[in-house]
C-alpha cells in the first residue's frame, strides 16, 4: 500500500518536473509572474519526490519485504541505521538517492533570487529536464518499487557485510552530492549561452555552487579511500580501480574549473574554456554513473551487469553532450579572442595548471577505456593498473608543483618581474634542500622520482609558510583558502612519498602464545575467542604488540554472517603519530597455525588530513562569498 503510494508519487513528480520544463519553454521567462509559477512548479515536483523517498525509507525501516529491492538488500536482524543505508547499497536505491540529491540542488538553487530572471528560469528548465531523464531511467530500467507477489519473504536477504560500516554508509551519499552538484554550473552556463548576453558574469554566480559540490566530492572520495583501507584488508588507500578513477576524473576537472572560474574575467579565451569545462565536469560525473551502473568494466565495484541500463545512460549522456556542445559551438562567435593572456601573468599560470589537469584527465580516461578498445580490436583481455597511472601522475604532478611555486610571485595581468620576485622562493628552496638531506639521512637510498617528490612537497609547504609570515608582518592580505589547499597538496605529496617508501609488511604463521618480531615490533599471539553476535559469529584473535616501548592489544577478526553465509575479515589498526600498525588474520592451517599479516603503514593519516585541508579550504571560500554578499 505505502509502496504503491511511494511509487505513484515518483511518477507524479516526474510529470510535474516535465511540466516545469514545458513552462520554461512556453512562458515569458523574463516576467515576474511566470518566474513565480516555474518556481512553485519545481518545488511541488521536488517535494513529491522527497516524500516518495521518505516513504521508501519508512518501508525499509519497517521491514516491508513485499518490496523486492528491500527484501533483497535488507534484513529484519539489521540495526535500524543499516536498514536505512541498505537503500543505497545497490543499484536501484542508489539511483533513487542520486535523483533526490539532484533535485535537492535544484531546489536550493531555486530558493535564491537572481536578478536575471531569464537565465534563472532557463537554468531551472535545464535542471528539470535532466531530472526527468534520470527519473525515467529509474522508473523504466531500475524500478525500486517492484513488489514480490504473492507472498513476501519473511526475513529478507542481507546487505553485503562489508557494506555494514558507518564510513560506507555516508560515503555514497557524499559522493553523489558532489557528482550531481555540478548540475548547477552546467545548467547555468547553458542558460547563459542560450540567453546570449555576454556581459553577464555567470562565472561569479556559479562559484560557490561549484566549490560546494567540489567539497562534497573531495570528502566523498576520501571517505571511500579510508573505508577501503580498513575494510578490504590490503592496507592501501588507492587502488586505481576503474570506479575510483571515474570519481577522480570529475574531481580533477572540477578542481581545474574552480581555479579558472576566478580568472574568467581576465580573458575571453578563458571564458570560452570555462564554459567548456562546466560541460566537461558534469559529463564526467555522468560518465562515472555510466561506468559504475552499466557494469561494462570488470571491477570489484561493479554492481550490476545490465546492458539495457548501460545503453540508456550512454544515450542520455550522448544527448546531453550533443546538445550542450552544439549550443557551445553555435555561440562561439559571442566572444572575440582579442583579449589575450599576458605571458607569465597569474592567469597564464592558471591556464597552464588547466593543461596539466587536462593531461591527467585524458590519461585516466585512456586507462579506463583502452582495455575496452583493445579487446574489441585484438580480442585480447588486458587491464591497466597502478604502474601506468604512477608513470603519468608522478611526473605531471611534479611539473605542476614547479609551476605552482613559481606562480606565487606572479601578478594579475602583468608579466612576472624575474629580477625582483623570487627572493622568498630561493629561501624556501634552500630550506627544502636541507629538509631533503635530513629525510635522506633517515630513509637512506630512494628512487629519484621519490626524492623529487619529497623536495617539491617541502618547497610548497615552506613557500606558503614564508608567504603567510611575510603577509602577516607586512599586514598584507592572505588568500587563506589558497594557502590551505596548496599546503594540503604539499602535505599530500610528502605523505604519499613517505608512505610508498617506508611502509612494509610481513606474513607470519603463528599459534596462540607464540611470538614473532618485525622491524622493532614484537607480536605475541595471546588469545583466540569465539563470539556470537546478533547477525554474525566471529573468531577473534588477540595479539599483544610491543612497539617503541609501548604495549597494546590488537584484535583482528574473522566473521561469518548468517544471512548470506559470507565470511569477512576485520582488520585491527593501532594509530600512532607517524604510522599505523595494521593486523589481519587469514585462515587456519592444518597444523593449527594461523596466517597473520602485519603491516606498517607510514604517514597514511596525513593523506586524509591533506584531503581534509582541501575540503576545508573550499568551505572557507564559500564562507567568504556569503560574507561579502551579506
Amino acid at each position, binding site marked *: 500500500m505505502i509502496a504503491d503510494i511511494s511509487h505513484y508519487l515518483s511518477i507524479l513528480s516526474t510529470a510535474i518536473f516535465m511540466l516545469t520544463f514545458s513552462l520554461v519553454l512556453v512562458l515569458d521567462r523574463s516576467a515576474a509572474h511566470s518566474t513565480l509559477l516555474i518556481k512553485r512548479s519545481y518545488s511541488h515536483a521536488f517535494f513529491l519526490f522527497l516524500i516518495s523517498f521518505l516513504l521508501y525509507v519508512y518501508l525499509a525501516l519497517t521491514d516491508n519485504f513485499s518490496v523486492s529491492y528491500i527484501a533483497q538488500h535488507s534484513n529484519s536482524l539489521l540495526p535500524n541505521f543499516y536498514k536505512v543505508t541498505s537503500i543505497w547499497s545497490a543499484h536501484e536505491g542508489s539511483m533513487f538517492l542520486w535523483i533526490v540529491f539532484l533535485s535537492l540542488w535544484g531546489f536550493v538553487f531555486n530558493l535564491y533570487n537572481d536578478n536575471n530572471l531569464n537565465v534563472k528560469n532557463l537554468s531551472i528548465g535545464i535542471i528539470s529536464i535532466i531530472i526527468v531523464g534520470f527519473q525515467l531511467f529509474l522508473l523504466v530500467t531500475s524500478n525500486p518499487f517492484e513488489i514480490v507477489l504473492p507472498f513476501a519473504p519473511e526475513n529478507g536477504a542481507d546487505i553485503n557485510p562489508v557494506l555494514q560500516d558507518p564510513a560506507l554508509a555516508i560515503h555514497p551519499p557524499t559522493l553523489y552530492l558532489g557528482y550531481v552538484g555540478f548540475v548547477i554550473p552546467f545548467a547555468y552556463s547553458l542558460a547563459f549561452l542560450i540567453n546570449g548576453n555576454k556581459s553577464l558574469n555567470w562565472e561569479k554566480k556559479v562559484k560557490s555552487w561549484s566549490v560546494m559540490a567540489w567539497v562534497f566530492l573531495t570528502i566523498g572520495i576520501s571517505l571511500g579511500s579510508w573505508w577501503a583501507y580498513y575494510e578490504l584488508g590490503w592496507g592501501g588507500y588507492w587502488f586505481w580501480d576503474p570506479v575510483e578513477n571515474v570519481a577522480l576524473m570529475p574531481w580533477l576537472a572540477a578542481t581545474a574549473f574552480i581555479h579558472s572560474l576566478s580568472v574568467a574575467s581576465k580573458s575571453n579565451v578563458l571564458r570560452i574554456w570555462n564554459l567548456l569545462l562546466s560541460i566537461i565536469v558534469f559529463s564526467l560525473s555522468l560518465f562515472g554513473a555510466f561506468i559504475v551502473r552499466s557494469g561494462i568494466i570488470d571491477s570489484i565495484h561493479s554492481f550490476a551487469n545490465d546492458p539495457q541500463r548501460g545503453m540508456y545512460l550512454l544515450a542520455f549522456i550522448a544527448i546531453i553532450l550533443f546538445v550542450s556542445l552544439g549550443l557551445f559551438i553555435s555561440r562561439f562567435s559571442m566572444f572575440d579572442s582579442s583579449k589575450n593572456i599576458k605571458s607569465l601573468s597569474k592567469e597564464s599560470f592558471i591556464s597552464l595548471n588547466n593543461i596539466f589537469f587536462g593531461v591527467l584527465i585524458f590519461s585516466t580516461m585512456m586507462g579506463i577505456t583502452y582495455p575496452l578498445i583493445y579487446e574489441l580490436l585484438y580480442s585480447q*583481455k*588486458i587491464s591497466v*593498473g597502478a604502474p601506468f597511472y604512477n608513470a603519468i601522475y608522478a611526473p605531471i604532478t611534479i611539473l605542476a608543483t614547479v609551476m605552482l611555486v613559481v606562480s606565487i610571485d606572479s601578478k594579475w595581468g602583468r608579466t612576472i618581474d624575474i629580477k625582483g620576485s623570487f627572493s622568498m622562493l630561493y629561501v624556501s628552496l634552500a630550506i627544502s634542500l636541507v629538509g631533503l638531506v635530513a629525510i635522506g639521512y633517515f630513509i637512506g637510498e630512494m628512487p629519484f622520482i621519490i626524492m623529487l617528490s619529497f623536495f617539491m612537497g617541502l618547497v610548497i609547504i615552506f613557500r606558503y609558510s614564508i608567504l603567510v609570515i611575510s603577509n602577516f608582518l607586512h599586514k598584507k592580505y592572505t588568500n587563506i583558502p589558497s594557502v590551505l589547499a596548496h599546503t594540503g597538496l604539499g602535505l599530500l605529496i610528502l605523505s604519499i612519498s613517505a608512505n610508498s617508501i617506508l611502509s612494509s609488511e610481513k606474513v607470519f604463521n603463528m599459534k596462540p602464545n607464540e611470538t614473532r618480531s618485525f622491524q622493532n615490533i614484537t607480536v605475541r599471539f595471546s588469545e583466540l575467542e569465539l563470539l556470537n553476535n546478533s547477525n554474525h559469529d566471529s573468531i577473534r584473535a588477540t595479539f599483544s604488540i610491543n612497539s617503541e616501548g609501548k604495549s597494546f592489544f590488537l584484535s583482528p577478526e574473522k566473521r561469518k554472517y548468517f544471512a548470506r553465509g559470507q565470511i569477512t575479515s576485520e582488520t585491527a589498526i593501532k594509530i600512532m603519530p607517524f604510522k599505523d600498525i595494521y593486523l589481519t588474520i587469514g585462515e587456519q592451517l592444518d597444523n593449527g597455525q594461523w596466517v597473520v599479516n602485519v603491516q606498517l603503514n607510514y604517514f597514511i593519516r596525513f593523506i586524509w588530513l591533506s584531503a581534509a585541508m582541501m575540503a576545508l579550504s573550499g568551505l572557507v571560500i564559500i564562507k567568504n562569498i556569503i560574507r561579502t554578499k551579506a
Partner: protein
Amino acid sequence: MKSHRKKRLINVLLLSALSGAGVLMVLYALNSNLDYFFTPSELLTEEIPSNRRVKVGGMVQKGSVKRDNSTINFTITDYNKTVDVSYIGIVPDLFKEGSGVVVLGYLNNGEVDAEKVLAKHDENYMPPALQDK
C-alpha cells in the same frame, strides 16, 4: 599572409604538435604498462617475457592448495590446461578450491609468482573467459 594570421597559424600548428606528442607519450606509457589477461591454456601458447606482468584467471583446482610456511601454492585450471601459482600472504576470504580466482604476477619457469590474489566479491562469479566452456 598577414602577420597576425601567420602567427595564429604557427600557434595552432605548435599546439597540435604538442598535443600530438602528449597523446603519443600517454599511449607509449599505456603500452608499456599493460597487464595482459590469460587463461592457463593461452599462457602456455604465448611467448611472454618474465618482466611482463600478467593476470591469470581460472578456477582453483580441487586438492591443489598447499601451504609451506607463509607461502601458499595452488593450481589454476581452465578445465583444459593448468598453471601453478605461488603466493606469499593472506588469500582473500572468498578464495577456495573449486571457485574462481584471478592472480596478478610474473612468470617464472612456467610458474606464476603472484603479487596479488583476487577472488571475486561474489560467490557465483565465474571468470568471463571461462563462461562459454
